[in-house]
């Protein structure tokens, strides 16, 4: 049973994907049932495994791919951190997407790729070797492209081209790095420590740059972030998934795997590549915030905010010390919850009231109170207001940074908080304290299915912060990961 578990989890999204592709456009109810059913089944399996992994059970599936090259699916604590997030948010995003897209065209194609994209994310989470990781990473690239260009207009196609251009180049770098590394030793498994410590330091440094550079495209590290703001032309549920779970997180997750499971923190520290990466992440944090401040389109503002926030994860991973690592890992979940809330809200505002620009949000608190409240919680969390999720991440990153002797990290965090406040507080102010156009007076929040996911994720971002001491909170799970595997 334990050997079957990874396959089962993977198939909860892979099977729906394949079925939906062959489903006729008109079978709306069947499509919905398969989608939701798959998502629920996955959540149940994940819950089972959470309990198991907490007791040190190992779930592992090994399939021979080529002679000497295995496809290894393995559930460890880190994999579950990412998997739980994606399973939970996939369910909510599916509900949201069904309501958001309504009866639009090409929905079978959309939901097929949507499920495929989640299957790829699951695969990334479960990967036990570098090659397995790469395969799913590429599957993710290819399955998200049809989602980005879903509208099919010129702007979408251009964004799609840019997206592919950037990510495929990143993939080339990543693949070359993997091949080079594995040609020097043997296929790399994440659980085996010290596989590459004997190699030449200079070679290792170059390979590290290639790997991180390749992953840095999806992670949207400046200057490789150009595709992300463009990709926000996609439908809101896609943006939500891309920004919170799938694409950028896959990159960040890969960075964590490279640093902790391929190289290992002692080696990263020895090669002194951690600090430059931390500096690059910090630069991205500040740069993304400044760019966000300059955007007047809400989704674009959120997109640059993602550029900034995802680098918190990289920052946490690149600092040498357990506390900062916890901060980075936990932000993987926290940022996902908060950012998906913001995109859900932005989508709902666009859908219901055709609000796209910052100036148009005036008085929304009166017309769409639930949406505005969810947005407020998530935005305050991004700023780092306690006790919302973002505060926990920042606290661990800051304290961890100081403990590692890197005082400047506190400055970066403080600067980022201020910039976050500068671009989020005006939105909150306009929504609640400025009177909107007279035409908008009634409460027209509309379908609960469009609004409820945002409310749920907003409450979740509040809960994971306010109740961070509970046994299965993301914070405690991240602490468990660090205690088990990465304590330097």
């Amino acid at each position, binding site marked *: 049973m334990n050997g079957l578990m990874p396959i089962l989890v993977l198939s909860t999204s892979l099977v729906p994907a394949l079925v939906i592709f062959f489903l006729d456009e008109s079978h709306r109810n069947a499509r919905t049932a398969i989608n939701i059913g798959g998502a629920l089944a996955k959540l149940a399996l994940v819950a089972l495994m959470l309990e198991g992994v907490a007791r040190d059970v190992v779930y592992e599936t090994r399939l021979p791919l080529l002679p000497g090259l295995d496809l290894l699916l393995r559930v460890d604590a880190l994999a579950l951190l990412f998997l739980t997030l994606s399973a939970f948010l996939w369910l909510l995003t599916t509900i949201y997407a069904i309501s958001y897209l309504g009866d639009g065209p090409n929905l079978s194609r959309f939901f097929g790729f949507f499920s495929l994209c989640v299957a790829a994310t699951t695969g990334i989470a479960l990967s036990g070797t570098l090659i397995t990781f790469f395969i799913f990473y590429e599957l993710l690239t290819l399955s998200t492209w049809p989602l980005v260009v879903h509208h099919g207009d010129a702007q979408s196609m251009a964004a799609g081209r840019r997206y592919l251009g950037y990510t495929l180049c990143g993939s080339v770098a990543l693949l070359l790095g993997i091949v080079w590394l594995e040609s020097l030793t043997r296929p790399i498994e994440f659980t085996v420590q010290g596989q590459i410590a004997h190699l030449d330091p200079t070679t290792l440094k170059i390979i590290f740059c290639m790997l991180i*550079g390749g992953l840095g495209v999806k992670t949207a590290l400046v200057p490789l972030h*150009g*595709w992300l703001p463009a990709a926000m032309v996609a439908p809101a549920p896609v943006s939500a998934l891309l920004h919170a779970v799938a694409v950028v997180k896959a990159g960040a997750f890969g960075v964590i795997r490279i640093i902790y499971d391929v190289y290992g923190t002692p080696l990263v520290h020895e090669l002194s*590549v951690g600090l430059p990466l931390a500096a690059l992440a910090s630069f991205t944090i500040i740069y993304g915030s400044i760019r966000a401040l*300059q955007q007047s389109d809400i989704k674009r503002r959120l997109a640059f905010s993602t550029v900034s926030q995802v680098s918190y994860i990289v920052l946490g991973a690149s600092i040498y010390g357990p506390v900062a690592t916890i901060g980075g890992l936990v932000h993987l979940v926290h940022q996902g919850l908060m950012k998906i809330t913001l995109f859900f809200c932005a989508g709902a505002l666009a859908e219901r009231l055709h609000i796209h620009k910052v100036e148009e949000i005036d008085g929304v608190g009166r017309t769409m109170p639930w949406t505005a409240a969810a947005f407020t919680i998530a935005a305050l969390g991004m700023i780092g207001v306690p006790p919302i999720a973002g505060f926990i991440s920042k*606290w661990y990153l800051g*304290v961890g940074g100081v403990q590692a002797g890197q005082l400047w990290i506190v400055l970066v965090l403080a600067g980022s908080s201020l910039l976050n406040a500068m671009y989020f507080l005006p939105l909150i102010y306009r929504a609640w304290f400025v009177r909107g156009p007279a035409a908008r007076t009634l409460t027209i929040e509309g379908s609960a299915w469009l609004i409820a996911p945002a409310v749920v994720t907003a409450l979740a971002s509040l809960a994971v912060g*306010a109740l961070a001491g509970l046994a299965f909170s993301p914070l405690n799970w991240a602490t468990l990961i660090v205690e088990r595997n990465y304590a330097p």
Partner: protein
Amino acid sequence: MIETGQILLVLALAAPLAAVMLVPIVGQPLRILPWAAAPGLAAALTLPGMSVELPMFVLGLTIQLDRTGAMFLGYGSLVWCLAGAYARHSMANADRAPAFCLFWLLTLAGALGTFVAADVVSFYVAFSLMSLATYGLVIHDRTASARRAGLIYIVLAVLGETLLGAAFMLAVSNAESTLFTDVHAALATSQWSNYVFAGLLVGFGIKVGLVPLHVWLPLAHPEAPTPASAVLSGIIVKAGIIGLIRILPADSLSPLWRDVLVGFGLFTAYYGVIVGLMQSDAKAILAYSTLSQMGIVFTVLVTGLGGPDAAHTINVTTLYAIHHGLAKSALFLAVGVVAICGGWAFRSVMVATALTALAIAGLPLSGGALAKLAIKDVLGEGPEAFLVALSAIGTTLLMLRFLYVLAQKCGTSTAAPAWGLVLPWAGIVFAAVTVPWMIFSELSGTSAAYALSPANIWSGLWPILLALVPAIIAIWRWPAVRLTVPQGDIVVLVEPLVRRIGERAAQASVQFSVPRVTWIAAPLGRIDAAERALRSGSTQGPILVIVVILIVAVLAS
């Protein structure tokens, strides 16, 4: 297991938060306000020494009623209850009553939380809640001036929050736990203590109104509805004071730092008086008086906390802060009460208000006299002691100015006053007179009889008598002398500049040619242009990716 007492202590904070949920449901949410702080009052009176650990919340919260915490919680809850009773009537016909209740309850929970927090994280959670929720009270009226005050408030509040957060991160990094006692001990050996200190100073300095970080205070306190002004000046500034009490690493301060800080405190004490005298709005005068008084408290704290008797310093500061909190909130409410009273009611209110106001200046036999007496032995005999004593003259003048302005506001109604407004005010006045006497011996370590000695009565009396001379001259001889300074004083100098920078920075993406403040906007515009160029074609991106990775790889080798 959890005892009943602990439940009550948790309720002190949980009840107002739970009441927030009731606001949208109940028909008249204003009815909740008088009762929201009742559990806090009950806990403060019955549970001294109680502490509760709540490990499941945030990073583990600890709340504790040590002597300081219990005293602050007690007086704070009392004022919140009575001001809530006042608000119930004064806001009854106001617009947006539910919104007012919401922000009121959140601010209340946060403020009481800062008083009982025993660890850094609990304190920070409570402090942030309070700071952000206060914004809703400040801009309640939605007038242009309220929005301006709100903007200046929130900018400084967010800045303060951020710096406090950074300071706390530094402070806990080498502490055994986040408990204040551990953090305080760790700071003594921390290599970052100077940075921590700077962060705390600015963060708390903004809250207590230390010049030049005070600019929001004289704008925001008067702008809020009257009951909110009362709690802003009466309680919320004290959250900054208790923060300083809890964590200020005064024993690791160099003498030079200490002198500089005493200078800041004294400057604030006098600055508040001088600028306050030039105000013509009753609430603005009170707000300036608040920052002047907080200047004195700050002086006492930095003088005493570094010395051998830090515990005593904390006690007397508590006494001073509590008296000021009670008296000042009574005075703010009086501004509302006077407006509805005429005839005999007006005269009695004015007499009571005059006594409350002069109590702040240290009128003998008043609670203020006790407070001034208590801080004396901390200040010792040096020049700061003399300057603090002398400031009582200024305070008297400022209070006389307040009474003078207040008297112009006399209502015309000769009917019976609205008891819903008068009684809460009278309750706080009563508390301001009696509470300091009740806690004096415990906090100052001397008996009440000592306070009644002729020498001590005289030391309270002479500044007031001295102040009467210029006051009488000013009223009778030079009614035309008018030196006015706008509310918020120096903020009017920096405000246009900051506003322009903000606008330009935000617009920099739209246009390249920026008339003024180019030094900040132009680089931002260039960033945007660079990204645009990158975005124009789909091929440049990939090329960039490869180039960047190659460059980095070459550099790394």
